[in-house]
């Protein structure tokens, strides 16, 4: 049993123990602490060993033909995402407050732990089957949490909406994965092992045409899960309705599954398939950045605005992926990390605003900076991180992605034009974030509101996330050291 | 004059139609049940009739397959009546009615 198995099994065990009657919050916190420490150990070990190869391998063969193995391993990319998951899980459990309405919160904490375990399993699985299955494991509690503990009148309808939406996405994805399994397994030895499915360099068993049509369901499936335009409309309402920790976990961690899948499965296994859809993908990601960016500007509620901003930033990560070089992919993974932390931070702060105020309608708030200075300052940090200010990891990842697109670009190709257009998104995101910030925290106080400042219990996770963003912003090589040659390796 | 196969079948069809009409139109579930039995009898009658004219020249067919089948149907029908009536009694106790239009809990 390796440390990675431990990381995945601890939240599951904690969930079982809560189910058997243990104290929910204590167990969840203990599991989150343990995972945070183990995650750091994994990360440090990876830094020492280098991120190019798989480490901490473990496997149990479940079936021989087709070969089905419950196996886990981490390389640099998985390591970064594992670190992201344990950090966000820790913060999400910490910000979960006592006011769960009904019951002892058993289901609440079990769901949180299962989401974390599912995400960790999906990021570490070496097997196509478990890669998919663990993600589904994480999705189901998400739906439950939104339906049971969500906010607003439409929470049940929203829970249904994303259940169906993501269900369809997963189904399409499943179709693509099955096609992959069928067509790429070595003759006579069907296998789900991702490494064994990978074609040997230079000789791909499938023609470009076949790759193209297998790539499409993968792109659409992963795209729906990542809220790629035009499959994005589930995201903002879901995050607005979700309880704070679920919004943090889903937007911060679980949504990265689709991007991880693109990098781990779709792109390496079907390189020519991607080439066929590159133009389409560029158009769609511009839809994310520009179109959804504009949609974000006109949002009236803070939670929806943050949700849409998260959708918008997915476009940059896709841009990094579309660059097809190590710079772009490194930038994309760095951005997954940076965006994961910053969006979790924003949702955590937005959640505590929701607890204190009777509305999150931006135009009806104003001048709150005076009565809640700590929240105002931390929200400022979060907002500046989100719009990609130097000093935060988000900036480092954005600039890496932009440079990646222009690597050795003597003349303007389609990728370069798309990148220039995508640059405008930097202005758009500044517009909506600063407008909201100005309207909520600055200016004259609207109404007679003197809400309390951020609770003491929230301060540790919030400050932790800000420190991580700053640390990786000042020294992005901490993360990037694990991903020096991602493109070549995969 | 001895009746031919057509007459038997005519009577059988008539019985079946009356039974079917009863099932469709009557409200009382016990009557419906009786009509069902009538339809079974119609089937039995045509079975025996086909046997009687079954060898091609208006003479009985070889063997007693039809009779066996008829006995089988009668036995099953008897069992069905036992179970069915028990269900109806239970239904009446639960719902205080034996009218089918009141029994619409299967509505989708």
């Amino acid at each position: 049993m390796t440390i990675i198995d431990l990381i995945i099994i601890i939240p599951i065990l904690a969930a079982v123990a809560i189910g058997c009657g243990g104290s929910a919050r204590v167990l969840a916190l203990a599991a989150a602490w343990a995972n945070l420490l183990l995650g750091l150990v994994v990360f440090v070990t990876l830094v020492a060993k280098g991120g190019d190869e798989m480490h901490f391998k473990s496997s149990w063969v479940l079936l021989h033909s087709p070969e089905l193995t419950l196996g886990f391993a981490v390389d640099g990319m998985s390591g970064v995402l594992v670190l992201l998951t344990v950090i966000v899980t820790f913060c999400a459990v910490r910000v979960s407050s006592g006011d769960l309405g009904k019951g002892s919160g058993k289901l609440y904490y079990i769901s949180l732990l299962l989401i974390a375990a599912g995400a960790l399993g999906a990021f570490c699985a070496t097997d196509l089957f478990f890669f998919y299955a663990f993600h589904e494991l994480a999705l189901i509690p998400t739906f439950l949490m939104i339906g049971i503990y969500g906010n607003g009148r439409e929470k049940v309808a929203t829970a249904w909406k994303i259940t169906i939406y993501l269900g369809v996405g997963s189904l399409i994805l499943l179709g693509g994965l099955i096609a992959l399994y069928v067509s790429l397994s070595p003759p006579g030895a069907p296998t789900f092992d991702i490494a064994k499915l990978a074609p040997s360099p230079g000789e791909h068993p499938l023609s470009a045409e076949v790759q193209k049509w297998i790539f499409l369901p993968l792109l659409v499936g992963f795209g729906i899960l990542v809220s790629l335009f035009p499959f994005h409309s589930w995201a903002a309402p879901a995050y607005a309705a979700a309880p704070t920790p679920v919004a943090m976990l889903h937007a911060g961690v679980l949504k990265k599954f689709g991007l991880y899948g693109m990098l781990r499965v779709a792109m390496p296994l079907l390189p020519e398939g991607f080439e066929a859809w590159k133009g389409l993908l560029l158009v769609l990601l511009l839809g994310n950045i520009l179109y959804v960016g504009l949609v974000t500007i006109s949002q009236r509620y803070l939670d929806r605005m943050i949700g849409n901003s998260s959708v918008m930033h997915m476009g940059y990560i896709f841009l990094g992926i579309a660059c097809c070089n190590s710079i772009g992919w490194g930038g994309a993974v760095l951005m997954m990390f940076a965006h994961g932390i910053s969006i979790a931070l924003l949702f955590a702060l937005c959640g505590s605003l929701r607890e204190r105020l009777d509305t999150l309608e931006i135009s009806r708030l104003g001048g709150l900076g005076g009565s809640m200075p700590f929240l105002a300052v931390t929200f400022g940090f979060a907002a500046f991180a989100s719009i990609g200010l130097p000093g935060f990891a988000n900036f480092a990842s954005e600039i890496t992605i932009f440079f990646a697109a222009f690597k050795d670009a003597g003349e303007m190709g389609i990728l370069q034009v798309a990148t220039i257009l995508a640059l405008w998104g930097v202005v758009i995101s500044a517009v909506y974030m600063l407008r909201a910030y100005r309207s909520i925290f600055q200016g004259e106080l609207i109404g007679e509101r003197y809400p309390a400042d951020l609770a003491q219990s929230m301060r540790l996770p919030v400050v932790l996330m800000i420190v991580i963003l700053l640390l990786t912003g000042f020294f992005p090589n901490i993360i990037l050291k694990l991903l020096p040659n991602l493109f070549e390796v995969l | 004059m001895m009746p031919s196969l057509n007459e038997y079948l005519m009577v059988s069809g008539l019985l079946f139609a009356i039974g079917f009409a009863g099932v469709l139109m009557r409200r009382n579930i016990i009557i419906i049940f009786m009509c069902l039995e009538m339809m079974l009898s119609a089937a039995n009658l045509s079975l025996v009739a086909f046997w009687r004219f079954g060898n091609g020249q208006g003479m009985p067919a070889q063997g007693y397959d039809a009779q066996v089948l008829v006995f089988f149907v009668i036995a099953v029908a008897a069992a069905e009546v036992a179970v069915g009536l028990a269900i109806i009694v239970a239904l009446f106790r639960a719902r205080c009615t034996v009218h089918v239009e009141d029994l619409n809990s299967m509505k989708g």
Partner: protein
Amino acid sequence: MSIAFIILLLPLVAAASILLGIRKKANLSAYVSVASAGICFLLTLGLIRGSGGEAGAFTWLSVGGLELKIALEITGLTRGMILVVTLVGLLVHIFSLGYMRDDAGKARYFAGLSLFMFSMSGIVLADNFAMMFIFWELVGVSSYLLIGHWFQKNSAAEASKKAFLVNRIGDFGFMAGILLLWGATGEIGFSALRETLEVQTFDPSLLNWAMICIFCGAVGKSAQVPLHVWLPDAMEGPTPVSALIHAATMVAAGVFMLTKVTFLIIAAPVAASVIQHVGALTALLAALMATQQSDIKKILAYSTLSQLGYMVMAVGFAGFLHSGEAVGAVASNAGFFHLYTHAFFKALLFLGAGAVIYACHHEQDIWKMGGLIRLMPVTAITFLIGTAALAGLPPLSGFWSKDAVMAVTQNSTPLLIVGAITAFLTAFYMSRLCTIVFFGKARSQAAREAGEVPLMMRAPLVILALGAVIAGFEFAYGWFIAPADLPHPHGALPLVLTIIGVAGIVTGYLLHRGREKDPIRVEVLVRKFYIDEFYLFLVRVFQDGVAYLAKAVDQLLIDGLIVRGSARLTVGVGLLLRGLQGGNLQRHVFLFGVGIVIVIYLITIALG
């Protein structure tokens, strides 16, 4: 760690320690910040005596063949600029001790100042575009924080937001330009780029586009037309901030950056022409707008815009083809020379205005002041020295630098005329300002009660006044620009300029002596050519309109028609099928019967 790195990092340490530790102790925070500025200034004195060259590097980001470095480069112009930044910075810090003495957010203010010093030093010392861009954004943030210092005032909150957003538009172009250059050459270091451009030839249209894009960054930061609108609004910030950031240093960063890429301007003549004309247009328009403002800080803000226009225009002449050869570095040196002297006298004017505002209980309307020369003589005299320098009267510093700039424009008659008109207007509006504020009778109670400011605020004024007098002499600038590298005017240009300056001052004085309001009121100038209104309209119609439209499309088409539509379709089909399941036993039986009949019919047909 080299001296330059310490200069760079010390203010960051100060800002961080204020934010993390001592922000509750306002006075201690202020002293920490001032001390860091003072040490930086002393270290700068050491640095500028040094030999220059590289000063160490730190690999900030490296992945897959991309390496972005924080590397410092010290050239001649860098030394001049870092001296301006640390000297004016130190004086503004000291002045702020008095000006912000009783402010509730004092610790936050000084943390902002230190953060600014860090960012600005980063721009000055950068040896590559990536690092410059990083600090370029950071000065934007510190400017945002300081303009919005009084964030509970709606106007200050709006102004800080506007400044940041307008700058972001410029940064968009800047980044695009950097990327274009990097794509073509594979280099982002200034010296590496210069060498590459010397060795290889590149598509001129690409270079032109890249340079125009990079110039966008300068347009935003140095507030050139059409992105000039943020600077006047930025006057909502505390006055010392306006002196440091929005007069002497940050807004000059655009010009400084252009001087750093002079080699690129030379290689891109079309872009150079764009730069000249944008600069000239800014100089003229801003000077016109300055003549009709009544807020003392806004007048100075437009004046800053106009002078920045001068500098940009001069730098643009580097790529001007004069009998087949580019004018070259001489032109950008002239621009930088003006930047250098301007930093002194404009910081002086702003701090003087700050002292006046402080003395008049935060009154900024010049029509409520008057006669202040008797009540606050030191402030008034230093202010008048600054005015004379700005108007270009010999032998003050502004005279020499303006001569250098105008000498460059002698290459092109239309721009020479624009420059001369602007020079006249400059003298005119400054004389108007001084006449109204310092002479005549006091026009309000606040002005009658004004008194001289404390020593802590007077001392910086005197030092800057000294700088405004001597900065144009060779001993004060020769150590970073050799006089031979500056352009020299032909003919009677200096004399003509002096006459223009005197004429402007006299006209301004005569027109406004003893008046209670402007004798000539030009509505279009008062309303700043309606540019703000026009932009507001553009933002409303295009950005917000399109955003609203996009939201509507999102809700109606994507979420409504496609997503909910398919959901509705499923539900609708379900409803149809539901009708078949009435729960009525007899209906089921009937349908069952019908089904059997149909099946028998079909079987009959199939069998023939």
